[in-house]
């Protein structure tokens, strides 16, 4: 029996629908792949870390003996680095973005800087390490100090801060600037008392994400010569240091399985720090997005 045109349409239509369903299923599986990996990674790390995570681990200096080893100096080193990096990179990055968005006139110079920043964001971190080694450790003679590390990390995250600050500034409606100018504000008054405060949540989110990138960076710190064995706390910006990622790298690279547990324990501490920062940024953004949508 010859199928009627209508029946053929029906079979084709249901086949097309079925193909769509299968595709949707594949797409969904691919999407949750990332989430599954993230959960696997966390469970694996926490499982290996459990026997090693205790108060002694946080309060001890590194040691050749796994039972006595801890991350006190690495934790303090990372916090020092983060503080110094923030002090250097935030003012510099926000000032650059304000210049680019609020002052610079469209032209070849502005375009050059924009292309330059986009490209800098793609330079591998190990190359920043080479720059830091030549420029800060040797040329500026800062040695293998916290300051040299913080300067290197600052250059590394500067493009991220600039780009996110620019986006925050761009999202401020120009009516705000117009009304401030109309009331006789000077350029700086308009920026300082209207544009910047309104863009602050966006800028803050970008800064947190950039700093969380900095705190996890390992390669540049290895390049500038961060130590792996530091049985003291840094007292100033010119002291030698170690950091959490360096300690994790060192322990992971050792063949003994006890050190694998130590590495996992250090990863847990680092990830707690990072997740807190990331979550703050995400919640902050969602909060302000919703509030803005509401008005």
């Amino acid at each position, binding site marked *: 029996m010859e199928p009627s045109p209508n029946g053929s349409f029906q079979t084709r239509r249901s086949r097309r629908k079925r193909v769509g369903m299968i595709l949707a299923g594949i797409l969904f599986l691919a999407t949750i792949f990332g989430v599954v990996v993230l959960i696997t990674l966390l469970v*694996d*790390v926490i499982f290996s870390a459990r026997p090693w995570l205790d108060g002694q681990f946080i309060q001890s200096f590194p040691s050749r003996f796994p039972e006595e080893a801890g991350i006190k100096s690495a934790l303090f080193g990372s916090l020092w680095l983060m503080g110094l990096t923030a002090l250097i990179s935030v003012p510099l990055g926000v000032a650059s973005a304000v210049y680019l968005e609020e002052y610079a006139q469209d032209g070849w110079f502005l375009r050059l800087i924009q292309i330059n920043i986009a490209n800098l964001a793609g330079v591998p971190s190990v190359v920043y390490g*080479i720059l830091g080694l030549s420029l800060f450790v040797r040329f500026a003679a800062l040695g293998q100090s916290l300051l040299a590390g913080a300067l290197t990390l600052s250059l590394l995250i500067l493009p991220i801060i600039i780009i996110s600050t620019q986006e925050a500034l761009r999202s401020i409606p120009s009516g705000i600037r117009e009304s401030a100018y109309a009331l006789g504000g000077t350029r700086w008054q308009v920026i300082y008392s209207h544009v910047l405060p309104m863009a602050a949540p966006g800028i803050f989110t970008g800064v947190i994400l950039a700093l969380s990138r900095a705190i996890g960076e*390992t390669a540049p710190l290895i390049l500038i010569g961060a130590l792996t064995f530091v049985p003291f706390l840094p007292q100033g910006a010119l002291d030698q240091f170690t950091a959490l990622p360096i300690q994790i790298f060192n322990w*992971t690279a050792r063949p003994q399985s006890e050190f694998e547990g130590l590495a996992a324990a250090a990863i847990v501490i680092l*990830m707690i720090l990072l997740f807190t920062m990331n979550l703050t940024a995400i919640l902050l953004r969602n909060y302000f997005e919703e509030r803005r949508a509401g008005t």
Partner: protein
Amino acid sequence: MSTSAPTPTEERDPKAAERPAEDLRQQVYDSPKEKLIKYALGACALVSVLTTLGIAAVLVIESIPFFQTVALTEFFGDTQWTPQFSEKHFGIWALLAGTLLVTVISAIVALPVGLASAIFISEYAPRWLRKTLKPSLELLAGVPTVVYGYFALTFVTPLLQAFIPGLGVYNALSAGIVVGIMIIPMVASLSEDALQAVPDSLTKAAYALGATKYEAVVRVNVPAAFSGIMASFILAVSRAIGETMIVTLAAGATPKATLDPTQSIQTMTAFIVQVSKGDTPQGTIVYQSIFAVGLVLFLITLALNIFANRVTLHYQEEY
């Protein structure tokens, strides 16, 4: 006040529309103090240009002594890289091959999965699921590379060894897969931006012609976002080439020009780390070689990034 300032109504190029305050700003009078602030902020913006110049200068100047000893013909002609041996070979191909191998494996993992995630999040996921998936991909992107390196060495490699008997502790496959996982969020979020930029009218037109959802997505949305998706692929590949800690920890330290993923290899980035974490004295040829390798790495990633930005600009102009 400048007389040449354009009046707001005429000849607004598309760039000016993006910068709404442009015309307004040109009408503002600046006192000397205001000018000072302007120049101070401008100086800060110059730091990023100086960084680029600094990177280029350091890499070129520091690799000059290396190229005085090792001829360019050997650097690009030899296929062995053995700086630590008594008979030294400096053929960059051995390191380039290792980098290429890891990059290809990571691309095979990340490009399909990343694109599929982007399509799902942008076209299929209901609002509540989208709100859960996007932050978790962002968290995945926030995991430090040294943690991925630990994961590759202590989880993925033993897992692979269960399937591939005789697989060594250090191999390109495990490192490549984990580098791929690392760049999935990048592909996903950039491709998703490209898909979101496709005008709704195109999708609606496809539906009006009787397309099913999958037909609209595969034949209209994805092709329309093609250049943006390509840009995300190129940027992700560039990121994979520059990735350092995963390959240092999991891929090994034996430079060789092989395309066998089960072998232990060394990438350019891993070589740089290996030399600088050891106590190689300054001024030796091995120490100088990291700058030459760094220069090659910088040039490759720069070329890819410029290419990706070109592609992105192209697609922005289309609609």
